[in-house]
């Protein structure tokens, strides 16, 4: 009897041992690649990966980790009994990408076979319209200057383009549409003329492109630059972003505390004279350096002490120009001390 009981106990333990040795969760996705194929006219794709626990122990899935900030993924449920099914829902922002976009999502779990499983999302983004270029940086322009640039617009799905308008955001921009010869109506050019009129300013004009039968623009083209008058200031603002001063090597402290602004006469033949650089910030010393007499100057701004707090100020410089007797350079000091 005792021997029989001992035998049964031994057999039970052996069976238990076998069961323990073999029991494991097994994460099995129906597909590990989600291929959207060609897509057009969308900026985000969403989809669902389905999976199940094919093992014989409880499966625990941890937070999925996309390899791109453009992807968001969530899994439900996070714990699955053997045989149970679940879903991983994702969305991928393809933005203005073109061509094949391929991203991955890592799925960590307690599956001993594959503790981190990789899923793949693939999209072939086809833009219906190809607009080149979409952005023009015209740089510094003097008042009255006229600048012409050309944009080419193509319809990529084989249908006629039918570009009916290119509407500008201001009176200083004029546009003209012309069909590209030999394109069978699939492509047009848009000539954009920018006249540097109005006040001295930084400008960013937008031209909206509209095709037949649609009320919203297919896209926009931006034309950007600044009208500088008789002098150009670069950069237009001085910004300090300061971290931990005690982590900066002494040899580099001078560089860190110093900034400079370049001021150049933009009107040919006119002699530019600058004087009296003044800062409204008491710890900011300013010095005027002549790089080319009558033409180019440098204002060197140096902090005498490392600032402890953020502050804003202005540097002013007197000029000999009747149209602009004084110029101002805003100063922004931003301090974030590391703990």
């Amino acid at each position: 009897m005792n021997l029989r009981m001992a035998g049964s106990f031994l057999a039970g333990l052996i069976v238990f041992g076998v069961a323990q040795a073999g029991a494991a969760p097994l994460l099995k996705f129906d597909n590990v690649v989600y291929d959207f194929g060609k897509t057009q006219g969308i900026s985000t794709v969403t989809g669902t990966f389905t999976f199940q626990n094919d093992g014989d122990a409880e499966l625990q899935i941890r937070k999925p980790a996309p390899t791109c900030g453009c992807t968001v993924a969530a899994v439900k449920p996070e714990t699955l009994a053997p045989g149970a099914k679940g879903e991983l829902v994702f969305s991928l922002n393809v933005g203005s990408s073109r061509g094949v976009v391929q991203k991955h999502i890592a799925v960590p779990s307690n599956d001993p076979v594959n503790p981190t499983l990789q899923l793949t999302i693939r999209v072939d983004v086809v833009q219906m319209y190809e607009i080149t270029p979409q952005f023009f940086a015209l740089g510094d322009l003097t008042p009255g200057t006229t600048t012409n640039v050309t944009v080419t617009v193509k319809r990529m799905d084989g249908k006629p383009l039918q570009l009916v308008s290119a509407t500008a955001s201001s009176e200083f921009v004029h546009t003209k549409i012309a069909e590209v010869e030999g394109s069978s109506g699939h492509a047009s050019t848009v000539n954009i003329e920018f006249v540097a009129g109005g006040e001295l300013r930084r400008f960013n004009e937008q031209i909206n492109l509209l095709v037949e039968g649609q009320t919203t623009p297919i896209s926009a083209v931006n034309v950007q630059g600044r009208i500088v008058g008789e002098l150009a200031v670069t950069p237009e603002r001085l910004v300090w972003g300061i971290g931990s001063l005690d982590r900066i090597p002494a040899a580099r402290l001078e560089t860190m505390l110093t900034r400079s602004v370049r001021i150049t006469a933009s009107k040919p033949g006119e002699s530019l004279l600058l004087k009296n650089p003044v800062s409204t910030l008491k710890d900011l010393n300013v010095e005027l350096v002549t790089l080319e007499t009558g033409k180019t100057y440098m204002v060197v701004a140096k902090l005498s002490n490392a600032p402890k707090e953020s502050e804003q100020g202005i540097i002013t410089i007197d000029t000999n120009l009747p149209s602009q007797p004084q110029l101002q350079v805003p100063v922004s000091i931003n301090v974030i001390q590391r703990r």
Partner: protein
Amino acid sequence: MIVAASLLVGLGVNAFRADLAPSGQPRRLPLVTPPKADLAAGEIVAMTEAEQLWNEGVAFFLDSRTSADYQAGHIAHAHSLPDEDFASRYGDVEPLLTRDAEIIVYCDGVECDLSHRLLEKLRALGYPRVRVLVNGWSEWRKAGLPTATGAQP
């Protein structure tokens, strides 16, 4: 003896399981290698250098993610220049930059290419000293470095 027998049986079973390595440890299946970033060595800034430049305030950090992502959290002092809105937003940061400015662009994730695209655009506009901090937002947070939230100051 009984326990030893159970262990032996268990080990025997494990030896025939295909999902376990001979050592008994789970086999680590190779991960899918992220696509090789199309960046030259000189176009990438290491985290240690980025941190140093940030401390000194001598580099401009540009966040190439969407405005919403920037507002949710960004590297302190960084300026927002979403790659998607580059044409309409470049004018916001241009007044701060000189052509020789040290610029560090970043986004989030090892496979995020927004910063790569922003680098190309800025270089095309004549800023040669642009570099990418790969997986910048995640790496910066992981390092416990200063962050901020909200819209551009």
